[in-house]
């Protein structure tokens, strides 16, 4: 009951906020939702699969471009593109994953990075289709969704449904097996698990939902441009997952919230937002490796306290 109660309460709060918040603030929250879905989808690989992919922006950007380019060239209705985008994400993930998953750890991370740079270049140079650096702008979403509140509620609904599906995946035999592979790849293999196939499946699912997050971005911005596929964009969901906690399902969503509002708060005082981000990341990796979501329980605070003490003690011994 506790596991269901909190998310339901959160959804209710968000719906209420959509009626009360001014438009500018509502749009920020919409951004958080899209980033949260992007991060939770990426975390299927990162936290559950133990696979560090630095190329998830490829799928995010693809999702955005499917909507924008199909609108610009074929006048495809938004709803068709909305269905098409995750399918395209899955297909691209199948191709990238099939190759990248032949390698492990650092090489896997580098290959996903290389692929994402490749797609970034395509988006930038294929001017005829993507309009290059300028990007594609325009009224590519139904006018109803262009209204702030309706748009927000749509993004909220898609995010909630997508997360429910992803949660179901993590709680299934497949999700359990994915964790086993993360914990000990060789042992899982010895149990008769086809590691490659399971990782590929996770990569495809993640790719599809990252593309869906890209569609949500379009609902928010009504645009698609090459920066969406940039490798720094791939870094976002990874950072957010680490901040929020990659071993809990909603940890990355918490991270997305903190990241967005932290960013907005800090740039009011200083332009050195990256510096603060670096310090926060450092503190989290050192003191709360389970992420901020780990601090939702008393045991999490105790563990963090014990870590701080042990690090201080070691420092005292060294000094």
């Amino acid at each position, binding site marked *: 009951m506790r596991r269901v109660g909190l998310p339901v309460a959160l959804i209710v709060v968000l719906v209420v906020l959509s009626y009360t918040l001014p438009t500018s603030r509502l749009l920020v929250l919409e951004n958080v939702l899209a980033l949260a879905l992007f991060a939770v989808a990426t975390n299927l690989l990162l936290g559950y699969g133990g696979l560090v992919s630095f190329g998830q922006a490829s799928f995010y950007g693809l999702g955005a471009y499917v909507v924008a380019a199909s609108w610009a060239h074929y006048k495809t209705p938004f709803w068709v593109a909305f269905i098409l985008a995750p399918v395209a994400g899955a297909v691209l993930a199948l191709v990238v994953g099939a190759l990248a998953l032949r390698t492990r750890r650092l090489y896997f991370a580098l290959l996903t990075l290389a692929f994402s740079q490749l797609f970034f270049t395509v988006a930038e140079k294929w001017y005829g289709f993507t309009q290059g650096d300028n990007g594609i702008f325009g009224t590519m979403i139904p006018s109803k969704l262009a209204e702030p509140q309706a748009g927000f509620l749509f993004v909220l609904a898609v995010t909630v449904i997508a997360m429910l599906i992803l949660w*179901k*995946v993590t*709680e*299934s*035999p*497949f*999700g*359990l*097996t994915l*964790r*086993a592979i993360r*914990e*000990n790849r*060789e*042992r*899982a*293999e*010895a*149990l*008769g*698990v*086809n*590691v490659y*196939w*399971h990782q590929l*499946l996770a990569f495809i*699912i993640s790719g599809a939902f990252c593309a869906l997050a890209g569609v949500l971005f379009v609902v928010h911005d009504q645009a698609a441009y090459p920066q969406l596929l940039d490798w720094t964009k791939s870094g976002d969901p990874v950072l957010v997952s680490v901040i929020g906690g990659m*071993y809990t399902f909603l940890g990355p969503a918490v991270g997305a919230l903190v990241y967005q509002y932290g960013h907005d708060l800090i740039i009011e005082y200083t332009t050195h937002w990256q510096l603060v981000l670096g310090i926060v990341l450092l503190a989290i990796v050192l003191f709360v490796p389970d992420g901020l979501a780990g601090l939702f329980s008393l045991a999490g605070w105790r563990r963090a306290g014990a870590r701080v003490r042990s690090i201080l003690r070691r420092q005292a011994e060294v000094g």
Partner: protein
Amino acid sequence: MGVLLETHGLVKAFGGFHAVDNVDLVVNDGEIRSVIGPNGAGKTTLFNVVTGHLRPTHGHVRFAGEDITGKSPHTVTRHGLARAFQITNVFPRMTVLESVQCAVLARRRRTSDFVTWYHRSARDAAMEVIEAVGLVEVAEQEARTLSHGDQRALEVALALATGPRLLLLDEPTAGMSPWETERTVELVRDLARARGLTVLFCEHDMNVVFAISDRITVMHQGRVIAEGVPEEVRQNEEVVRVYLGDQV
């Protein structure tokens, strides 16, 4: 009793060094077979070749009448040959129950099912295995919090849960207390007698070897130098010279 596992002219060479050198091993259905020999005799390499973790340089491995030479570890496991590892090799952040459930699901080929709930699937089958190895009390604990002996028991449970016909144990009592060793001996005996499992294991504790083996294979420098029932092996002069010495 038929032949369950058979290797024919098995060679594994690393460069010029023959770690396993022309080994013909025949393990009958239902027997408890131990492989002994000094460190570096090639026991673990032999196991690695049999389970597909290493590809043999020459020779064949047959299991239950099928050629499994050079097949991948997960395919070999699906043929019914499961392995418990020498180094404790479990899933640290997963509970005992979750780990064994995963093994049961692997046996049922249901690991890529993402429609049902894992905590309902395979629960009963997993608990039965957990009970057999005596881990019921710690079933909800994460593997990383278990004692060494319990982790080894989990190791055996994982292998068992894949529903094998042959259980391959790599030094099952290494690093165990006398009490834990005794428990393991009882367990292996019970598995072979009550469940009709065939057990192939290597071990340095000669008390364990002579207590439970039906037959013993002795390896030295990659070759099999003797094979027989415990009494024959104990009296074999070459075995005494290269390995047993004054151990028995």
